[in-house]
């Protein structure tokens, strides 16, 4: 680790924090239906959409109707995306003449983009036509992110309103999230990516002659635009198989910083928006503080583990000063790679600028564990916010009794029903991750996909289901996930991770919204100070993470101690 490296990390974090507040306040205004500068241009478009869809924007929905609308929208999205993938051979913009995507892969991919996971069991440039990329995948990059934001808004309103029967209108929230937030930001960020050298073209692949005289096919396409929403919407599904390690997706250090910035900023701004909406901006910053503590610890651990490198390689005479460079892009360096690794997994983004499979055992432990903590650091756009709220509710409940009152979070009493629903949500991740991993670990047909034996192989299995259930989508690699078993089980994990999680959370939001807002007093549990930040960190760690430790002990942890003892796999 170097001071220079930490300064780079601090720079990126600083840029995120600078942008988060204005963006958060802007979103608070937009989602409150207030007029902003953007409504001059976008207001008519927005109303046009409502007119076309026959939606009356004033008509609000209860939690059940809201969730029902979201599920219906997702079901339609799944059907259309599945059809596009299966039929791409007959659809336009297919310069390379790709075949239709096979059923299990199309199922997996459709679920994957629908749930904002963007797990890719395929190589983009060798499987997907431009039409599938743009009209199929990129559209869902927007819509799945906007859906996440809408759900987060509904949960926010559960706290900002008192004795309310409704949580907003899903169609309105979805439209505003896309129109006022994601589209304008994507436009700006896409142009910035073009400026850094990312291609933006409808042309197909070009053939180039290499220095050795061999012929190389170089894939091209509308990369910059896809890249923008992939990061802003914490989707993570790359245009190329190599994702953000590919020089066309992530051409240089500036592009790399922009990538990390666009991943973090919207989720961070949503927390600011949450604070503003519930009438206590400090609350948003407190949540951000807890997120920051865990995320930066993760960054530090990856950075330390990677720069420490592998003692076995040092013993073979490799210069240990550079640390572990396997699977990393030299143009990004150790510091920003460590930051990228932690951020993309702390968020449910899943874009990667390095091969996570090639990280040292401890370096690989971090992304795995960060996803398992529930994708709340600060999580995917929207999903991170509502996940964090669930942990905040649990933290307030566990320790809140200690001040001698029925625990309340932001004036809403936390009672049996809320706890039941919060626990149901929290239960989903261990159930999907550990359940499927335990089966896959003893199923010969599943094990056939593994590239590595021993603890590292177990890490690959764990990472796959963790990434799917956490709706992250990053791959540890080293595991051929494009088989019917993996395609189907990861798809189920993704569905559980998204819908199995959010339905109880929405029910909880409905029940909280209906409660009266209690007035704060000196006897109220303070949830905006450092004490609460510490408590929240503890609860995320203990309730969200501890159950994975036995499994992790058999994977990256044992691999680490074995590496130190001189064994590899």
């Amino acid at each position: 680790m170097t001071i220079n490296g930490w300064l780079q990390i601090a720079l990126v974090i600083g840029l995120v924090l600078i942008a988060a507040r204005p963006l958060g306040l802007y979103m608070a205004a937009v989602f409150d239906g207030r007029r902003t500068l953007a409504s001059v241009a976008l207001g008519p478009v927005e109303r046009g959409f409502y007119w076309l869809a026959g939606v009356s924007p004033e008509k609000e929905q209860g939690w059940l109707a809201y969730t029902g609308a979201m599920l219906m929208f997702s079901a339609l999205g799944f059907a259309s995306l599945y059809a596009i993938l299966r039929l791409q051979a007959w659809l336009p913009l297919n310069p390379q003449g790709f075949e239709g995507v096979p059923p299990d892969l199309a199922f997996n991919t459709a679920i994957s983009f629908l749930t904002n996971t963007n797990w890719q069991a395929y190589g983009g440039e060798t499987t997907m036509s431009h039409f599938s990329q743009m009209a199929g995948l990129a559209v869902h990059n927007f819509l799945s992110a906007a859906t996440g934001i809408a759900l987060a808004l509904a949960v926010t309103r559960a706290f900002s309103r008192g004795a309310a029967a409704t949580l907003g209108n899903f169609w309105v929230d979805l439209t505003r999230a896309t129109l006022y937030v994601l589209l304008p930001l994507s436009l700006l960020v896409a142009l910035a990516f073009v400026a850094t050298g990312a291609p933006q073209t409808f042309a197909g692949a070009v053939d180039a002659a290499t220095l050795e005289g061999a012929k190389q096919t170089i894939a091209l396409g509308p990369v910059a635009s896809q890249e923008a929403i992939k990061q802003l919407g914490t989707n993570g599904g790359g245009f190329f198989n190599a994702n953000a390690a590919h020089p066309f997706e992530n051409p240089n250090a500036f592009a790399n910083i922009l990538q990390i910035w666009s991943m973090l900023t919207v989720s961070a701004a949503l927390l600011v928006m949450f604070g503003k909406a519930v009438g206590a901006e400090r609350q948003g910053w407190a949540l951000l503080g807890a997120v920051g503590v865990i995320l930066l610890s993760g960054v530090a651990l990856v950075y330390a583990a990677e720069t420490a490198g592998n003692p076995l390689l040092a013993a073979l005479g490799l210069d240990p000063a550079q640390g572990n460079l396997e699977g990393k892009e030299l143009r990004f360096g150790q510091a920003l790679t460590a930051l990228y690794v932690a951020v993309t997994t702390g968020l449910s983004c899943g874009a990667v600028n390095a091969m996570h499979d090639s990280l040292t055992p401890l370096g690989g432990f971090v992304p795995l564990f960060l996803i398992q903590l529930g994708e709340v650091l600060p999580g995917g756009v929207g999903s991170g916010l509502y996940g964090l709220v669930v942990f905040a509710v649990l933290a307030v409940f566990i320790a809140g009794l200690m001040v001698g009152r029925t625990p309340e979070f932001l004036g809403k009493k936390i009672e049996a029903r809320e706890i039941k629903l919060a626990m149901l949500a929290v239960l989903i991740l261990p159930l999907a991750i550990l359940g499927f991993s335990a089966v896959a670990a003893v199923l010969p047909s599943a094990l056939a996909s593994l590239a590595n034996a021993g603890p590292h192989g177990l890490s690959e299995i764990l990472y796959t289901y963790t990434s799917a259930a956490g709706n992250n989508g990053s791959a540890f690699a080293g595991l051929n996930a494009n088989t019917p078993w993996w395609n189907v089980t990861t798809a189920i994990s993704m569905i559980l991770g998204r819908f199995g999680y959010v339905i109880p959370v929405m029910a909880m939001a409905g029940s909280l919204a209906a409660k009266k807002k209690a007035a704060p007093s000196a006897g109220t549990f303070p949830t905006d100070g450092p004490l609460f930040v510490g408590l929240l960190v503890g609860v995320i760690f203990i309730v969200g993470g501890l159950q994975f430790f036995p499994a992790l002990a058999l994977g990256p942890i044992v691999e680490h101690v074995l590496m130190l003892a001189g064994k590899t796999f």
Partner: protein
Amino acid sequence: MSAKFKTRRTLLFDPALLIEAAADSVRKLNPKTLMRNPVIFVTEVVAALVTLLWLRDYFSATGSPFFSGQIAAWLWFTVLFATFAEAIAEGRGKAQAAALRASRSDTMAKRLIDPQGRDHLDGVIENVNALSLNPGDVVLVEAGDIIPSDGEIVEGVASVNESAITGESAAVIREAGGDRSAVTGGTTVLSDWIKVRVTAQPGETFVDRMIALVEGAERQKTPNELALSVLLAGLTLIFLIAVVTLYGLAAYSGAVPSVVVLVALLVTLIPTTIGGLLSAIGIAGMNRLVRFNVLATSGRAVEAAGDVDTLLLDKTGTITFGNRMASEFVALPGVDSRRLAEAALLASLADETPEGRSIVALAKGDFGLAEPEVFDARAIPFAAQTRLSGLDLSTKSLRKGAVDSVLKFAGLSSEQAPPEFRAAVDRISRSGGTPLAVVETRNVQAHAVGADAVAFTESELLGLIHLKDVVKPGIKARFAALRAMGIKTVMITGDNPLTAAAIATEAGVDDFLAEATPEDKLNFIRKEQTGGRLVAMCGDGTNDAPALAQADVGVAMQSGTQAAREAGNMVDLDSDPTKLIEVVEIGKQLLMTRGALTTFSIANDVAKYFAILPALFVAAYPELGALNVMHLASPQSAILSAVIFNAIIIIALIPLALKGVSYRAVGAASLLRRNLLVYGLGGLAAPFVGIKLIDVAVTALNLA
């Protein structure tokens, strides 16, 4: 009250109680009843499983029966300690319940066949068992009889001994009509007779409810307890998933631990500590309330007491002593204040009202005057008509009383009174006090030449006595403490706003409601509740009933009317309105104890991982021994020590669960900081120390 408190305290450590609780704890192992507590139920199931495995090991001579036998034993102890905690908490209420039950059984009632009959002795009475009385029945209760059920006096007046309920043996008067018409079944009529209309269903009288309550028979989980149970069940499920799936993951690694070891991991991870103590905490909280002679009709009310934001307190009796008391003598210019005090003392000797007594006490206290020996004097006792009292001596008469009465006695109109006098009257009234005037009238004998002596009188106003509501000592500090806890105090009074404001300032309440009618109270409570605040109040009259019912916590006085007692959700057997504050504190303490032990229990998990995880897989991966930061002697001793710690911590925390965590009236922020430090960080650190010590002992004893 305090004496009773002590005798019940000693019961906690009564060996007989411990033995009975031990027996009860075995009875409570019945899985059917244990299912109410998912954490302990899971522990019992796996304890049974490990017992079977031990039997297999023992008879087939495979495995390590010595090890699995010990684990099985400690798992059973874990369950037993949990049921023991509940049994001992319940046991404390049982002695009291037995005493109550004695008052109820074998009571016969004299039911009037024709309640409308004018004369109660005309032979229309039938003797029936008290348990067969229905609401609406009218019974006759005569001197020496036990009142057979709860009811309302419809005719008669009697003195009643209510010690069976309140523990207070002084008799109280109960009479038809008004606010003292309610009687409680189980109390005894000492003199006279009353006709009582029964108001309670058989088996649902106040005493029945009390028995059920102290025995815990009717105990239902309170809202917070329910929520906590859900959380604990959820955590149990999560760790169950973690341990069951570990089987598959470990199979991949070729490191499958034995079922006994996996069970040990499960039991140490699930929150057995709080799971085992949860119901004991709740029962103990109710018992604390009962020891304070307050009876809650539901646990919900006790919890709500902890949540209260606004306390509505009646001025009289709660904030001030019931009566106005003399606080100051204001002498007029030219009058020695000692002379005024003497005159006031003499004039009040025949005044038996509390105000009169307070004047005597003030004169004796402030001026050190002795009780004067008066001869040849005629006392004029205080009378409501004259509003004066005094003393006629041979040479002079002294009077003290209401200002206008005194002026009239002195033959003065209010305009004729000296301006200093009028100014002082104004000042005292404005400050919320009541002025009493003191006058001395001398008999003057004038001897005119050539005539008979002519007697006439000469009056001199000496000054004023300032009577005021005296705020109870220490009450201001208590309100300050409540404020620190975030609780607003509101004084309710019938006084005018001026007087109310003066007393409110002196007592340090946050707000007051002057000239309050019952409707005003009700509206005030509603307004507070609309603002998202929980309100507690106490009351005794029938006109308090709507407000008591509306309040989130309504404490009715045992001496109050039946309507008030039914409207409230708590009854204070001592009829002491100040207790509302203690009730709030007990509610808070109950919640805090639960929170503290939950945090402690959950924080314990971290250390247990460090004990068990390396031990779990060290056979397959010896390198994992690096994680054995506690340097436990062997994998088996590590696992055994963690399980033993897990069991013993329950027993170690029973006193805390029963006593409650120490409570201080400070704001939530500092409470949280302190408790997080003690129970959060303490919970992280304690098992490291505990498991290490047990490991040392286990190794020394060659147990593993």
